[in-house]
């Protein structure tokens, strides 16, 4: 394309060296004046008159310069717009074709843009804090023998303060955690979980309050009763009061002075301490600060300027090694790790989002193949016109360029429509993603997303357009003209078949991915977690310390609340537990009485839950041996089958006594029963050894009540809440959900990816069937003469149908075979994301292949039927 390169070069010249071009033009015109003068002098004019005449002839150099520049710019714009105009004109003349292509591309590019805008907000956009790449989280690495596979563990305060004192690679470190309060005096009583933050927390984030101040270092002490509130809390709960800094909040019966209001931008929903409505000082007592064996705190840190994450890590590792030696009893086997804050927040969803982007990219490829197919058919249909243009001096390169610009124009129109589509779907995504994908509330279209859409459009245009443009550009004029008006049957059939093969293969990969994700979701939904979630209502109650200060009072409240629940119509059993199954909870070392206490590294650990009588029946957790706890029991324990096996092997544990050293080394509990295993940490995890404790009149402050009912559990919700309210009108009841809802909420991200993958696969399938249909129709049209001759020579309709079907099914089957192969290769990357099914499950793959074969057959039937109806005479006459 010498023309294009020359134009490009001159464009660059003009852009880069505008001044030089200007100078050159001046010189060129100056020389022209001199030459003109000399000419006139030679022909006998006196020098003065010659100069005047020359000036007159040339006119004003300035205005000439203007004219020249205008001509240049005009030529540049003309050349570009000529092609675009031509493309637009010829596309408008084929509105059906244009509409199909634009819609196809809009779906493909729109879906890609939407997924990319999520990926952009979640993975690419830095956290909204100054210098976010220096922000890290600090964790313990627990002993692997007791916590197999666990790489990040909460911190113990004493260890943290040792790290803080000795590490140099960090500018600052701060502890934080959650603290539950009951907020009263602001309308309905409400349970509120504050972030309790250690000194330096806000400084590390570089977060400034919008009003007032954050905590002073001396306020990180038990006596301080100060609180910082969020922008949202100030606006809605305090009515945006101007005198907010003179107000106090009643938190669990105590008055906390409001000292500051954080700006709206600080409320980052996807990270616990920033998503809070209120913040209070962590305020550990001296005794709390000295605790080394209990790991309940989180820590944030900022790396010192110039320090790397690796430096910070190696420093903490050295300190941890030293602490292991200094405090072997508590610290043996406990290491340290440093993870960037961004990674902690979004690391878990990265594989899912990358998978979705890959899947939606495949959809775009299928769309490309389809559009390529259509463009190809169109180019073949126009080959006479194109060949004539090429022969008339446009040149093949020029025709190629023209066709490519046409496909780029189409792609850009599709891209623009796709961006609108993606923009419209962002709200739906925000709703769908809320609370499941971190930073989902920040999903917006920004310049990067628009750039991505533009890039995707251009790439699509080139991908879809290059092959047809190349093939059409090669058509010889003589061939094109010789074939005359007859629809040259076999032109480019091979290329188009190849496109069908690709489409089908890509669809197989996508369908396989979607099918495997769906099966995984079904497996997760139906997996036996050890209890029966149907017919169960759950309610969370947290009793504030101020009004329920003694265990006896708390027990009295819960006993009465459970009595009232049991009295409700339809309720067959009710009980309570501190943490519901699947939700995680306390994990503690356990010591069997009479056996020596081991180092923490070697101690067996178990999930520890506190329950009340009635809980097992409400959840339908089978009692395998011994008895359930009873109301009057003191210091008794139930063990799961797994825990019994872990601690006693085949021996009978009933009557044995154990201690939980983190709670008390002195308090021994008697085992009264063995219950079935229950999954505590999530449906995809295996059931872990669990013990359930119970002591009369020792209820903890926060319990989840569960009631089994013969009626639909959600219909019981209102009655259950008012039953508890009647007991104490100031007591909040939170998270009233059925157990099925609790379970489903845990699977929302799996449901989200299965849903999207299914959508993408369906889209690909539809596109592929349209592709098969259009290619086959084209072939049948092209071969109608041959078909007519065949039927005239006695071929049966059956034979004709069979011939056309074979024509359609051959590339489809080739596509299915290669797609199956590709799906098997791709399954490696999926394996980590699926549960209860192999990503290369042969049965699923067979079903996917069968489905595609069926769709291909259906797409072939209409053209085959049409071919069978070709009347021999008509075909021959044409």
């Amino acid at each position, binding site marked *: 394309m010498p023309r294009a390169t*020359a134009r490009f070069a001159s464009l660059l010249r003009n852009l880069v060296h505008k001044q030089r071009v200007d100078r050159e033009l001046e010189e060129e015109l100056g020389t022209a004046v001199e030459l003109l003068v000399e000419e006139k002098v030679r022909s006998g004019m006196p020098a003065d008159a010659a100069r005047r005449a020359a000036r007159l002839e040339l006119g004003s150099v300035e205005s000439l310069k203007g004219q020249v520049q*205008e*001509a240049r710019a005009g030529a540049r714009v003309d050349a570009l717009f000529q092609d675009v105009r031509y493309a637009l004109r010829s596309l408008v003349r084929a509105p059906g074709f244009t509409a199909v292509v634009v819609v196809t591309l809009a779906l493909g590019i729109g879906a890609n843009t939407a997924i990319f805008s999520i990926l952009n907000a979640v993975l690419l956009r830095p956290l909204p804090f100054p210098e976010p790449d220096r922000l890290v989280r600090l964790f313990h690495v627990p002993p692997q023998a007791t916590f197999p596979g666990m790489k990040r563990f909460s911190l113990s305060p004493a260890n943290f303060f040792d790290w803080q004192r000795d590490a140099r690679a960090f500018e600052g470190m701060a502890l934080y955690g959650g603290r539950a309060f009951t907020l009263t005096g602001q309308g309905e009583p409400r349970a509120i979980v504050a972030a309790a933050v250690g000194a330096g927390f806000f400084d590390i984030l570089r977060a400034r309050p919008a009003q007032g101040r954050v905590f002073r270092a001396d306020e990180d002490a038990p006596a301080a009763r100060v609180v910082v509130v969020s922008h949202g809390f100030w606006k809605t709960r305090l009515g945006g009061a101007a005198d907010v800094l003179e107000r106090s909040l009643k938190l669990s019966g105590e008055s906390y002075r409001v000292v500051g209001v954080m700006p709206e931008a600080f409320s980052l929903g996807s990270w616990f301490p920033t998503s809070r409505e209120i913040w209070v000082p962590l305020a550990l007592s001296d005794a709390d600060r000295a605790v080394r064996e209990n790991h309940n705190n989180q820590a944030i840190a900022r790396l010192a300027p110039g320090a790397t994450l690796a430096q910070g890590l190696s420093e903490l590792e050295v300190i941890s090694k030293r602490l292991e030696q200094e405090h072997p009893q508590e610290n043996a086997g406990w290491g340290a790790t440093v993870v960037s804050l961004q990674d902690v927040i979004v690391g878990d969803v990265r594989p899912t989002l990358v998978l979705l982007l890959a899947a939606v990219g495949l959809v775009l490829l299928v769309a490309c193949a389809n559009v390529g197919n259509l463009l190809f058919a169109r180019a073949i249909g126009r080959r006479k016109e194109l060949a004539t243009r090429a022969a008339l001096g446009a040149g093949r390169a020029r025709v190629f360029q023209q066709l490519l610009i046409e496909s780029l124009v189409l792609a850009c129109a599709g891209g623009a429509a796709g961006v609108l589509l993606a923009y419209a779907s962002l709200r739906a995504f925000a709703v769908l993603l809320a609370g499941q994908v971190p930073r989902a509330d920040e999903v917006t279209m920004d310049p990067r997303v628009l750039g991505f859409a533009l890039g995707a459009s251009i790439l699509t245009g080139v991908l879809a357009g290059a092959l047809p443009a190349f093939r059409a550009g090669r058509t010889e004029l003589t061939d094109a003209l010789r074939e005359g008006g007859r629809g040259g049957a076999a032109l480019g059939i091979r290329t188009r078949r190849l496109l069908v093969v690709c489409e089908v293969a890509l669809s197989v990969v996508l369908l396989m991915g979607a099918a495997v994700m769906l099966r995984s979701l079904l497996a997760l939904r139906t997996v036996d977690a050890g209890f029966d979630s149907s017919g169960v209502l759950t309610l969370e109650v947290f009793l504030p310390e101020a009004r329920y200060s003694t265990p006896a009072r708390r027990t009295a409240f819960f006993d009465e609340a459970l009595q009232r629940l049991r009295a409700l119509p339809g309720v067959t059993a009710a009980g309570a537990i501190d943490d519901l199954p699947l939700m995680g909870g306390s994990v503690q070392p356990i010591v069997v009485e009479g056996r020596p206490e081991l180092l923490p590294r070697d101690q067996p650990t178990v999930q520890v839950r506190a329950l009340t009588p009635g809980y097992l029946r409400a959840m339908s957790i089978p009692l395998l041996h011994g008895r359930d706890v009873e109301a009057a029991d003191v210091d008794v324990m139930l063990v799961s089958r797994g825990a019994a096996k872990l601690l006693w092997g085949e021996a009978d544990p009933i009557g044995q006594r154990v201690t939980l050293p983190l709670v008390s080394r002195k308090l021994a509990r008697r085992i009264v029963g063995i219950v079935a295993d229950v999954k505590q940490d999530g449906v995809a995890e295996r059931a872990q050894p669990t013990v359930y404790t119970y002591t009369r009149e020792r209820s903890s402050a926060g319990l989840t009540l569960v009631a089994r009912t013969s009626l639909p559990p959600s219909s019981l919700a209102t009655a259950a809440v008012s039953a508890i309210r009647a007991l104490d009108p100031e007591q909040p009841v939170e998270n009233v959900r059925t157990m099925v809802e609790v379970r489903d909420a845990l699977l929302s991200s799996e449901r989200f990816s299965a849903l999207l993958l299914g959508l993408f696969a369906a889209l690909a399938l539809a596109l592929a069937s349209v592709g098969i249909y259009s290619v086959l129709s084209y072939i049948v049209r092209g071969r109608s003469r041959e078909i007519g001759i065949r039927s005239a020579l006695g071929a049966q309709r059956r034979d004709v149908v069979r011939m056309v079907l074979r024509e359609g099914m051959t590339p489809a089957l080739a596509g299915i075979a290669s797609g199956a192969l590709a799906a098997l290769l791709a399954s490696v990357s999926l394996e980590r994301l699926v549960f209860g099914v192999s990503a290369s499950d042969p049965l699923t793959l067979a079903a996917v292949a069968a489905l595609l074969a069926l769709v291909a057959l259906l797409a072939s039937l209409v053209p085959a039927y049409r071919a069978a109806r070709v009347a021999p005479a008509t075909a021959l006459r044409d």
Partner: protein
Amino acid sequence: MTARRAALLQGTLDLLILKALAAGELHGLGVSRRIEQITGGTFVVQPGSLFPALHRLEEAGWLAADWQPSENNRRAKYYTLTKAGRRQLGEEQAAWNQVALAIARALEA
């Protein structure tokens, strides 16, 4: 036919410039003199039309330019036909012949 009226025939100027350069490189004024010469003085191209046209054709990739000393030893911008320009000349020539033939036939009829 006067020069002014001849310039009204759109496209002719481009054809004449391309033709003038077909024999070899020329600077702007040279192109003008050459057109005068090959048309037997029928066309006199004014600088106001000539220079914009030269630059437009250069922009379109039909002409290439470089700087050389002129006959009076000043730096002058010399234009040559590119390959595309040569092809364009052929096309315009063919088109022109067709038009000319058609007009001639029409006038004879």
